């Protein structure tokens, strides 16, 4: 077996990275090859030295500095929550003040100007023919109606013809036979 090839195996054998068959062949070679035995011993020593590096201690202050450096650079959610809570509280206070002022205005509303009551005068009589004008209620358009309203009560119209064709007397009477106009 080639010693160069065995050295590769010896390098891996130190960390148990060899298969069972390769380990057997390596052991057989090392039995009769002193240089490879020395090489294997050096690899084992080196493995032990490397493993010992793990136990080396670092000054604890270094770890503290690392942690502090990280914590300083990550967002502080506690601060965000505090800021959000303060913002919410400020908004509530502002809303309370606005509502209180609004309500205060509703308690004492500004004085309302009274509208003058308009009374329409009866139309003047023209000429000799007395004409009595009555207004019928204007019908509400269908689209504006919610429920069908009962038809408006029309006043009873009574016309009295006289001998004079130019004179007509008209009475408007409601359902109680109460005279509305003449």
């Amino acid at each position, binding site marked *: 077996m080639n010693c160069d090839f065995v050295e590769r195996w010896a390098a*891996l054998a130190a960390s148990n*990275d060899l298969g069972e068959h390769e380990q057997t062949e390596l052991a057989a070679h090392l039995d009769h090859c002193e240089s490879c035995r020395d090489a294997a011993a*050096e690899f084992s020593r*080196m493995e032990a030295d490397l493993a*010992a590096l793990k136990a*080396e201690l670092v000054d604890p202050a270094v*770890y503290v500095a*690392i942690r502090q450096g990280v*914590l300083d650079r*990550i967002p502080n959610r506690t601060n965000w929550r505090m800021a959000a809570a303060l913002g919410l509280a400020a908004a509530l206070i502002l809303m309370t003040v606005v509502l209180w002022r609004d309500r205060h205005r509703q308690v004492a509303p500004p004085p309302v100007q009274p509208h003058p009551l308009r009374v329409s005068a009866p139309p003047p009589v023209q000429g000799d023919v007395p004409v009595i004008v009555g207004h019928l209620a204007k019908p509400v358009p269908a689209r504006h109606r919610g429920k069908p309203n009962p038809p408006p009560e029309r006043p009873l119209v009574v016309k009295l013809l006289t001998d004079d064709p130019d004179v007509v007397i008209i009475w408007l009477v409601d359902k109680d036979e109460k005279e509305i106009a003449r």
Partner: protein
Amino acid sequence: MWELTLTTMSDKVVADDLILKAQAGDREAFDQLMRLHERRVLATALRLLNGNLADAQDAAQTVFLRLHKHLPGIRAGENLAGWLFRVTANVCLDELKRKSSLVPLDDGVNTIAASHADPERQFSDAERRAALLEGLSLLPAKERAAVVLRDIEGIDTEEVARILGSSPATVRSQLCSARSKLRVFISRVRRRS
């Protein structure tokens, strides 16, 4: 299972609890989580970055900031140590690429050996350790990463392959090459001392 995995059930429960609390924004829990993993993160970064403590500190901070950023995606029971090793290796290898500080081991052997030229001196344990670290820093980055994770941190080869994003066969090849180079380097230094 490699030794860095949290071994006892109670440790695992505590770690999962810390992850859940940290995910909910608990800074104290995140601080505890960092304490739990800081040694292996810093030690790995220190070895991968040629023993430069300032660079290793920066790398460790970057790793923990990435951990914080990715906290929502980490599930309880996940192998957080493996995730951290992977990120640490990536951060350090990126840093090495950025600095372009890779020196082939063969170039470094003669330079280092020249500084150990006193034949009267014994090759003490301290010198052997110094030579080992020197040789380690002169290895190609991928080989150094394999040695640091496998030989110093004691992670098994399959896990190292997962961390480095390669196959176990590749890692074995890298380990074999790196150990042979280290042995030759240390032998030369010893002969000249």
